[in-house]
């Protein structure tokens, strides 16, 4: 081994690293390498002396106020309420928190804010979700997803941390769960570590998702917050067998009994269903296929009208629901979620399976 070949190992040796035997032997007998080692030592010592002399004894006192939630109370409520019961979720399709409710979109447009980055997140081939993040309005600075990917349940959350010229800094948390009994909750993501990434729209970013591998993200800048953000179909016209319940509000007679702000669920197969829990009213199942015990609901554009227990209900959503003129609605008035879920409305989706009810 020559001195040049051994030079890099001198640096590693100086740092206490183990080096190849050939390099170690060369350094032992090479005066030039030992001189290099001594000079590294001298330089290192001088740098530490510089640092010691430059160290200030005291730093300016600071006040640390208790961190405030970055989310508005509105969003937080919506976030907490997004829970997806595990029915017989073999291929749970998609659950999206859509940060673009009709009400909020009006707000954003009224402000006239642009600077929205639209991310296309691809956890697996053929599975893509859209995520719109505003650099102007923190209320629209986060999005999340729970859905089936590679026969497991992937949950992730993306936060927009900051913007620097044409790029944005993103915080990403993810979690992978096996399909099974119980409840999936986005709150579980809070314990997952957040990783930060800089992303420039137009480029491709790979996010690390433990257990899954890498998730590809592409994106583009937009000048407005889109009214509809979610998976796949952004057409006003729903796809075949699509049942899309976006930002639902349930009326009992003329009284609003529940409003799932910011939450949406979509299924794309006739044997799947969307479920909606309203505290005090139980669990409602909506499907395109007849289900034992279900009643027919009439669909008109973004409304489903149905009766249960002799009472009239209307589900109003933020977008056309389905191509069909009817859906099947099964109500479980006595459904009891876990105690910590009982006070919040939630929405979810899964396969229709009476055995699990």
């Amino acid at each position, binding site marked *: 081994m020559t001195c040049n070949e051994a030079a890099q190992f001198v640096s590693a040796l100086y740092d206490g690293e183990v080096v190849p035997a050939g390099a170690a032997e060369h350094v032992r007998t090479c005066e030039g390498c030992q001189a290099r080692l001594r000079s590294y030592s001298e330089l290192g010592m001088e740098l530490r002396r510089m640092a010691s002399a430059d160290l*200030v004894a005291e*730093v300016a006192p600071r006040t640390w106020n208790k961190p405030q939630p970055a989310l508005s109370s509105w969003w937080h409520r919506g976030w907490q309420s997004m829970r997806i019961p595990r029915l017989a979720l073999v291929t749970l399709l998609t659950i999206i928190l859509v940060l673009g409710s009709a009400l909020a979109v009006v707000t954003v447009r009224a402000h006239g804010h642009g600077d929205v980055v639209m991310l296309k997140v691809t956890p697996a081939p053929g599975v893509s979700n859209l995520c719109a993040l505003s650099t102007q309005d923190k209320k629209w600075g986060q999005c999340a997803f729970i859905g089936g990917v590679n026969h497991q349940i992937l949950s992730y959350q993306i936060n927009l941390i900051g913007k620097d010229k044409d790029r944005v800094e993103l915080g990403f948390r993810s979690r992978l769960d096996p399909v099974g009994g119980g409840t999936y909750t986005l709150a579980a993501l809070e314990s997952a570590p957040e990783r930060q990434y800089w992303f420039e729209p137009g480029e491709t970013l790979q996010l690390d998702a433990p257990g899954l591998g890498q998730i590809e993200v592409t994106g583009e800048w937009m000048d407005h917050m889109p009214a509809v953000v979610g998976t796949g179909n952004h057409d006003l016209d729903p796809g075949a067998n699509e049942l899309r319940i976006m930002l639902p509000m349930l009326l009992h007679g003329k009284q609003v009994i529940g409003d799932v702000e910011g939450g949406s669920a979509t299924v794309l197969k006739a044997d799947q269903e969307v479920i909606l829990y309203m505290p005090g009213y139980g669990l409602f199942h909506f499907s395109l296929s007849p289900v034992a015990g279900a009643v027919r609901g009439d669909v008109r554009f973004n409304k489903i009208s149905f009766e249960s227990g002799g009472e009239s209900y209307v589900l109003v959503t933020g977008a056309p629901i389905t191509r069909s003129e009817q859906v099947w609605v099964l109500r479980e008035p006595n459904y009891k979620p876990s105690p910590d879920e009982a006070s919040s409305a939630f929405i979810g989706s899964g396969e229709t399976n009476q055995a699990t009810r």
Partner: protein
Amino acid sequence: MAGDREVWGKMPSGDAESFDVFYRETAPRLQAFLRQIVGSREAAEDIAHETYIRLWTRPHAFDPQRGTLRAYLFGIARKRAADWWRTQTSTESLDEDAAGPCNTEIDSAVSDAFRRLPEQQRTLLWLREVEGQSYAELSQILEIPIGTVRSRLFAAREALRAVWQQKR
């Protein structure tokens, strides 16, 4: 001195007292590091402050399985310093003196040679030689593979040594 995990574990509940202890223990070294990187005492203090605010308000962004809290702290600071440099170069051109450490009473050949190194090499050398960060921690802070840490450290030392020997 409180352990990383202990400090970190108390942050989400807003335990300002233990975080302040952590701040007072670590800030002098962080500021010294930043002074070497950005070359301005005022900018170093600002960046350090932003760094602690970031840690305080977003404690969950730290993953204890990926390294120590101190390494994470220096990683945030390094990124902030890089951002600071971007804004400086886009709005004004700095002369060579401004890029070097400021207000230091040290005027040795080594400090002069160190001042002449690129920011990336100054960062790496300082974190290794002064802060004693391991290769694994440097890999975490700089977001580069350990093999790259090794080769860049060698390159940085050689660069420093070359300038230093010229000035002797």
